[in-house]
């Protein structure tokens, strides 16, 4: 083997050899969370606070669409705690015997908002939902109503507020609510209906403006979660759940526009 080859092999093996000699204590417990995309920024902060209070728990979070997670969990994806944007999915996992029955909980009511980049000519304060009818609006991003809870809420609100038929041809669909926000933030779409929790995230607050879509214009977005039957450490998952619905989790959820569950 050439010298370069030997060095390359040594470099490839380095992680193993050093890991074998590592002395850092392994965390006592692990929790892997599958979280709905609307929690992207809020749960980052909740996770940080949880880790600070519970240094013995190793927490990993994966964000994605609630529907994708449901499909993956139906085939026993290795997550311990599932935080869905729609309580219906966790409920179905319980019904299918895949989740711990008494672990089902609701943690928030989600809200939706129109969001435009700061440079947009639209005046959301003045026009509200009618801002969508402006001739300069070519594309309106919403999440896919077929499987994203926030997409269903957006479509319902457009219907209730009487603009659906007029904006229908201009709708583009994000795979989940985070991609919907990203369509608008990147400038590719003119305006979007996103989760209020994303509009209130520092990053989007700095680059745009939002208008809260009236809560009574769509069925409430009841967000719920559940602990999976195969959770590696059920007790650790319960601690995270308690933290999320406890005072500190509630305070952070409030800040991101999540209303308390009834």
């Amino acid at each position, binding site marked *: 083997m050439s010298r370069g080859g030997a060095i390359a092999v040594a470099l490839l093996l380095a992680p193993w050899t050093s890991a074998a000699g590592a002395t850092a204590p392994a965390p006592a417990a692990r929790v892997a969370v599958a979280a709905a995309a609307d929690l992207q920024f809020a749960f980052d902060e909740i996770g940080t606070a949880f880790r600070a209070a519970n240094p013995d728990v190793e927490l990993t979070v994966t964000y994605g*669409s609630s529907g994708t997670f449901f*499909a993956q969990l139906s085939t026993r994806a290795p997550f311990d705690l599932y935080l869905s944007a729609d309580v219906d999915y966790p409920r179905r996992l319980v019904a299918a015997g895949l989740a711990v029955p008494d672990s089902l909980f609701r943690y928030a009511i989600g809200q939706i908002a129109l969001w435009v980049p700061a*440079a947009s000519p639209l005046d959301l304060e003045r026009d509200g939902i009618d801002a969508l009818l402006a001739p300069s609006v070519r*594309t309106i991003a919403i999440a*896919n109503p077929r499987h994203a809870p926030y997409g269903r809420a957006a479509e319902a609100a457009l219907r209730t507020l009487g603009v659906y038929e007029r904006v229908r041809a201009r709708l583009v*669909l994000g795979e989940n609510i985070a991609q919907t926000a990203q369509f608008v933030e990147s*400038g590719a779409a003119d305006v979007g209906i996103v989760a209020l929790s994303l509009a209130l995230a520092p990053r989007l607050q700095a680059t745009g403006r939002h208008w809260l879509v009236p809560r009574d214009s769509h069925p409430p977005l009841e967000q719920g979660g559940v602990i999976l039957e195969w959770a590696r450490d059920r007790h650790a998952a319960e601690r995270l759940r308690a933290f999320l619905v406890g005072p500190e989790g509630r305070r952070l959820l409030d800040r991101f526009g999540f209303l308390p569950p009834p």
Partner: protein
Amino acid sequence: MDWTAVLLTLRLALCTTAVLLVVGLPLAYWLATTRWRGRVVVEAVTSLPIVLPPTVLGFYLLLAMGPQAPLGRFYEALVGERLAFSFAGILLGSVLYNLPFAVQPFSAAFAAVDRRLVEASWCCGTSRLATFRRVIVPLAWPGIVAGAVLTFAHTVGEFGVVLMIGGNIPGVTRTLSIAIYDDVQALDYARAGDTALALVGFAAVVLGLVFALRRRAGRR
């Protein structure tokens, strides 16, 4: 099966292949014959999509197609429509993403043409264009078809770029792979399964065709 998605996907694949025949053949011929040293740079750039994840290309395209970006603004001023979330938009993404799948087989086919035959043709007074048409293309034919078929098939199977810049509009940007993803997400496994099975059959036929062409090219 979602026939709107089938038709759209076929249209996208045909258009991508057509564009890449027009753009890719001259580029591949130039790459196969030039002695310019900077050639490696061009080769590397056209091959980038093989290495890069589609999300990288999709991300750049999404930014480039917005009305604030130069490309998006230029297109909107020219055509009067938004480039992102349009058929033209996913066609552009698809052409860029498939560049290596067309150019590499084309280029290899051109490089395999015996140089002496080409020069003999020139010596007989045949013009360069006529030589290209009557000597080079007939000799490189199997490689050109293989490149075109690969491009077509690869476009049918494309997912990441379209997901990033398409916006899932029926008949405009909801291609077959997106429709399958959509069905799976909506837990409509039966419909997803039908479409997926049809695609598996399609892929098998296409690959059989490509390998048959390769054997034919190898025999010559």
